[in-house]
């Protein structure tokens, strides 16, 4: 049995990214789309931390980038939820197909 290497973590990150993309593409609930974005950001973070362990000279940088991504994801979730709640108050729905007022 082989050891756990960088490939396994990269494959898991790719799988999480594909799941997040599918979530963004198929869900029509705005909060479901937000969950897909969280999945994509987590996939990137898995890659960063795995590279911090397995790539030489990247031990500190990978963790620092992962922490920055976590903070950015928290801020993004806060602003996106504020926008979604505003949209819900004005339109009484969270279906993103109804948000077509800017369509030309």
């Amino acid at each position: 049995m082989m050891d756990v290497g960088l490939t396994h973590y990269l494959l898991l990150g790719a799988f999480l990214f594909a799941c997040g993309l599918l979530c963004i593409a198929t869900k029509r609930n705005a909060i479901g789309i937000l969950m897909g974005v969280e999945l994509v950001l987590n996939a990137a973070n898995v890659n960063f931390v795995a590279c911090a362990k397995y790539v030489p000279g990247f031990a500190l940088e990978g963790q620092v980038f992962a922490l920055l991504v976590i903070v950015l994801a928290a801020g993004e979730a806060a602003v996106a939820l504020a926008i979604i709640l505003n949209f819900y108050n004005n339109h009484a729905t969270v279906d993103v197909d109804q948000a077509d007022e800017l369509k030309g």
Partner: protein
Amino acid sequence: MSLEVVLFTIIASATGLSAIAVVVSRNVVRCAVWLLFTLVGVSLLYFLIGAEFVGATQLIVYVGGTMVLVVFGVMLTAQRQFLQIRIRAQEWIVGGTLAACLFGLMAIVSLRLGTPRTAAATDHMPGAGPIGVGFTTTYLLPFEIISVHLLVVLIGAAYLARAKRKAVERGSP
């Protein structure tokens, strides 16, 4: 089989299955619960790698903060007819094909990138102390930028919430 292989297999499969469940479950509350399991699984992977500080931050910020925010959003917007929005089969086909193609592409890249590296480059990962020193010396500019970004997010979220309340007051005579 070593303990690391067993632990990685269990945690990675649980994380992947939870991610699939996030995609396929139609109730948005169940989506949130499966996303919670996915985030906890990812933080356990960080602990397995040896990055304790990143894992703890993931638990505190994601599981403690962002998930509570998402659950509050679900509760505030969950009406009966919007809790389960029907998805057409056509959307599943197009989105699934796109995601499968992208996963295949990234799997090829991962296999090429990761094959020479099976041994860990460092014996022990730097903990909270070296990360803190790095944030105040080498990575001071990204740290400051992200601090200002958090301030902007705080002001923006407060402004959006306040504008909403004004509109409601104006709308009601």
